[in-house]
């Protein structure tokens, strides 16, 4: 019980810091290791586009920046997901949450274990959740201002594009995975905890730049380092 509280606190702290989003849960294997590392971009990533907001300006603002490839200091790649493809993740301690706030998806890339996700409408204007899944049923559901929470079930692992047709710039991703996984922060750093010791395959996935995998050996109580570099095709 103590561990659960500790991990939850850690997650909250991390989120509050605007830092990593660690896919959380009670420790599976006591004495598991941690994988840390960085994802970088090589080449010239596409420049962000600016879209003029034509409706709901009071909540959406007047302009939206569409960043397909988020590059931070030192070419770090944000919003990429790193997962250990040959290990099972822990059961999540709480339901995944996708918030629609300021006419943006938060987080832009949500990593969740198969199960339920709460979709919030914090904006008080009509949004619609339009998913492009293939393994799970694809759906398109309206979420008017008075519908604050919708709960959806995503049982099968896959990367799902999500959009809101009412606000054409709103795009996001939900990555449903059974593996231990983490999203990179704006510097491209990530940290996956509680990985069982042993040799593992680690994979990075980015909606635009694709995938790359590496082998890594995790030792109990130690940090294993992995570095990725995804090439931006012009």
């Amino acid at each position, binding site marked *: 019980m103590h561990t659960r509280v500790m991990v939850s606190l850690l997650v909250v702290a991390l989120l509050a810091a605007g830092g990593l989003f660690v896919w959380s849960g009670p420790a599976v294997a006591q004495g598991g290791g941690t994988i840390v590392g960085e994802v970088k971009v090589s080449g010239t990533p596409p420049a962000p586009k600016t879209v003029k907001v034509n409706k709901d300006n009071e909540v959406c603002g007047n302009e939206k920046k569409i960043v397909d490839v988020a590059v931070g200091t030192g070419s770090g790649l944000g919003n990429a997901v790193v997962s250990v493809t040959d290990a099972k993740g822990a059961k999540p301690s709480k339901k995944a949450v996708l918030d629609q706030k300021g006419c943006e998806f938060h987080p832009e890339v949500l990593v969740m274990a198969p199960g339920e996700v709460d979709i919030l409408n914090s904006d008080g204007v009509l949004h619609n959740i339009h998913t492009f899944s293939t393994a799970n049923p694809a759906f398109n559901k*309206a979420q008017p201002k008075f519908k604050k929470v919708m709960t959806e079930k995503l049982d099968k692992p896959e990367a799902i594009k999500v959009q809101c047709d009412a606000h054409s710039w709103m795009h996001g991703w939900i990555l449903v995975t059974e593996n231990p996984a983490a999203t990179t922060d704006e510097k491209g750093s990530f940290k996956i905890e509680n990985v069982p010791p042993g040799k593992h395959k680690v994979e990075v996935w980015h909606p635009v730049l694709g995938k790359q995998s590496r082998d890594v050996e995790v030792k109990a109580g130690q940090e294993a380092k992995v570095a990725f570099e995804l090439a931006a095709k012009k």
Partner: protein
Amino acid sequence: MAGPRGKFLQTVVVLVVALLIFKYGIRPPMPFSVLALYMAITLLAVLVYVSSDSESWRAFLAPFWTTLTEPRRRPLRLGLGVLLPLLVGYYAYSQAAAKAEAPVELRAIHPAPPPAIAFRGKQIDLQATPTPLRKDIAANPANAAKHLAAGGAIYIQNCVYCHGDHLDGEGHFAHGFNPGPANFQDPGTIAQLSEGFLFWRIAKGGPGLPKESTPWNSAMPAWEDRLTEEQIWQVIYYLYETTGHKPRVMSEGGHAALPRAPDLAAWLGPRAVQAQQAGDAARGKQLYDLHCALCHGATGKGDGPAAERVLPKPRDFTAGKFKLRSTPSGQLPTDQDLFKVVTDGMPGTSMPPWRVLPDKDRRALVAHVKTFAEGFKSAKPEAAKVPPEVASSDASIKRGKEMFEAIECNKCHGQAGRGDPAPGSDLKDDWGNPVRPANLHKPWTFRGGPERKDVAMRLSTGLMGSPMPTFIDSVEKPEDIWHLANYIRSLGPDRPNWASLVQVQAVSGEIPSDPNAEFWKKVPAANIPLVGQVIVDPRNFNPTIDLLAVRAVHTDSEVAFHLTWDDPTDSDPGKGAPKPDMVALQFPTGTGEGERPYFLMGDGARSVSLLTWQAGTGVGEATAAVEGKVTPRKGESVLAKGQAVYDAGQYRAVIRRPLKGGDKADFVFPVGRFFPMAFWAWDGSEGDEGAKAAVSTWYYVRLEAPLSKQQFVVPPIAALVTVGLELGLSRWAQRRRNRQVS
């Protein structure tokens, strides 16, 4: 006394039975004039029969006689005495009042073709058989499939808009044309014609028709400009092969001279009719290849040759996303859902109803369509739980409107529901194609049908693959789905009630230029369908403007047209739009008698005058002799005035002009005479400009004479004369009876 009364009754029974047989027993129904002729002949025959001997004649007349003379028949006598004059008076009134029907035009439908025509500088012998294409097929039978496929692609890309997927003249633009497009399935069309005749009609089109076909008005383009000789023979080949008709052969040797038609089986597999009962899906595949593949593609990806031009695009069946379902968002449709779409088509799109195919074939098509998406193998679609129906009422409609605002339907469908999302909304389907939200005032374009239950179903299940989400769990109370449906259906009529004539009412006093003036609300509207201009480049395959409501009045000095049309955006170059919205009223220059100019702004020899309104510059006048060469009038010759307003997805404009134009060559609006008139509209934000427009063919406009007193004077006189005749007849009969009695 049963005998004499029986004779009269027999006569009546015979006539009624004859009428029933003529009216309901004969298909297709005969026109009224033919029916009247047949009934007159029947009546005459019956009269000849009953008057064949004097006994029978007396028996026949007996009921008349007793009615006229018997004292106990007095109430009947009085009743008839009142009723007959009223009927005569009413008939006189209905004849005196103006009729809202365009005159019937007689023309030769199949004029005699010339023996040969010049085609792109080459002389083509129209009487030569076999045709070059059939010669080629005779020499290389393997080429038949290639030619058929090419003909199908040409047809689906060029002809389908008017002549339809089923080749029955019911394409999705067909309602915009008068005369309507030819129905090739009808045994009275291509089955009666030679391939050379078809070549001539296709190559030269409406503009190439000879004089006896005037007023030709035919929208059929001259395809010489667009298709090669081989392509025209290919599409002719496609027409005959697909309909199963045989071309007529003029020369000696008759049908035997024709090369044997290739077995379609080589290309399509055995035809549906000969199909072995190898299972529904197998039969469905043959039907699919024949009827559906030109749009939906051989592999169901929605990538047939038609796909590049039509909007909405043909559905990609492999994705398993279907718009019209009775199942929740995220599920596949039921067989019945698919069957309904195949049967009823999708109004407002190029998907036609396939009711022409037998029930069994449509079920086979459903079975085949289901093979394209993997999901159908394991899916068990369940019907969505639509809340129990709520009848429409003022209270329900009011609640529906509140809900419409609360759930923000306006985001896509516009404030007033005219399908006008905020500019830059960038609505796309799952394949990235642009999406036009439904105009809720036009239920006849609703893809899944106009009924309240259809609307409730769409709200409940959404349109998968499009931005339209499901609202079943996103209204305040479940029954709100029905309140919304009731509100949406309160916005527009089931059908638009297309007009054939623009009647211009006579008024006195000032005509307001303000399009929103109360004055205009009392003037009845003529709804004119507009369709895409798909004849000359640049073509407009998917016009946004599909209806122009025309109200018109005139005084003794000027005429004013009030136009209403829905356009999702107001595009004014003065406010940054790349191209302006426009509308034009087209009239033949001159008296409007004799041959009309080609409906697309003239044909070189005959020119047209245009009254125009354009966003930013307002009302103007122009002339044109060939489409694309519009010459605006300038200076003092421009007498037209008016103004327009744009509000919530709708334009309303008033264009007025003195009866006599400023240019001497121009026409004077004639009073009481049918005068040709056609319509144009451009949606600037869709890139409409020049020939890329929505158009109509020629209609008639008539300035009604000021309400004449005639229609109030003639009927009473007719009624009085009838009363007089009745009295005379009655008196004569009474006197004669008295004489007989004494």
